[in-house]
């Protein structure tokens, strides 16, 4: 009897562990509309990539992607963030469902040609990692949808201030996880989250 009680207790613990939700949450504010929960969603966008090809959010509906905001002449946090992006790129190099996007917040200097040169030096596959350039004001507004702070500031090196988060987005445009691009210790968790999202 005593052993039966102990076995039951162990079973309950193991069962509760097994049923722990492994699904990633949808981040951001949510509200109810017509009895349905509406989650935070990234607005529609369209940019040119380093090959001068138009890329839209719609084209990524069958993918998941990670995104950051940067500019090629950034002398502060961008190289560190890009190094973490590169680590994630290498981890999922052979997983076609995972894409990477780097939005330039300095389109005046970051022309298509400049981004192509930058991507070549990073030795990346241009069909997997898009370096995007477009309208500056729209890009700075769009950053807010990714919970990134980005704005022009003449006082800071490079002329732009921005946060270095790397954002994980699902095919529906929902933000599902993030890491601090300036803190390499947060990258392994994001890599795990990408693997979790791939199973959904």
């Amino acid at each position, binding site marked *: 009897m005593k052993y039966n009680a102990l076995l039951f207790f162990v079973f309950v613990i193991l069962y509760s562990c097994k049923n722990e939700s492994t699904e990633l949450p949808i981040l951001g504010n949510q509200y109810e509309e017509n009895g349905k929960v509406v989650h935070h969603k990234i607005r529609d966008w369209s940019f040119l990539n380093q090959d001068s090809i138009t890329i839209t959010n719609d084209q990524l509906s069958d993918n998941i992607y990670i995104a950051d905001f940067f500019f090629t002449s950034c*002398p502060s946090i961008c*190289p*560190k963030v*890009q190094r973490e992006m590169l680590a994630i790129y290498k981890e999922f190099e052979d997983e076609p469902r995972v894409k990477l996007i780097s939005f330039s917040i300095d389109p005046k200097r970051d022309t298509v040609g*400049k981004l192509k*040169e930058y991507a070549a*030096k*990073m*030795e990346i596959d241009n069909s997997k990692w898009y370096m995007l350039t477009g309208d500056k004001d729209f890009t700075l507004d769009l950053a807010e949808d990714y919970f990134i702070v980005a704005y022009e500031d003449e006082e800071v090196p490079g002329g732009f201030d921005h946060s270095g988060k790397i954002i994980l987005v699902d095919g529906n445009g929902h933000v599902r996880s993030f890491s601090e691009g300036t803190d390499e210790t947060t990258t392994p968790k994001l890599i795990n989250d990408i693997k979790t999202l791939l199973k959904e």
Partner: protein
Amino acid sequence: MTSKHFLKSSFLFTSFSIFLIFSGCNHQKFPQGQRIYSARCSNCHMPDGNGLGKLIPSLHNDNLALNSQHVVCTILNGINADSLGQTISVMPAFPDMTAVEMTNLINYLTSEFWKSGEVSKISNITQLVNDCRNSKK
């Protein structure tokens, strides 16, 4: 002193000595140079000096150790390069770096990335700094 007190004192002295030796071993040899590296270099060259692809070169390059003049001038003057018909800065210049700061930085780079064990003297680096500044005039 009784033998008990002697043993106790000897034990404490030995323990303290071992502590000093080990704390000395873990201590960064050039902390001033490390601070300068963290403030001015590590954002691009990374804390481990590995750089970023072909975009930012790795500092684990023994050729750099053989050419202090080149390293000092590069830090003082930065690097400009042609990009799509325009001259752009690919490495910022640090023209105001003093010879003392430069010596600390070079010694940190030498011990951390080049492992040559060579320690530069301020007099030598001052000469290199002056040569670079004069050649730029």
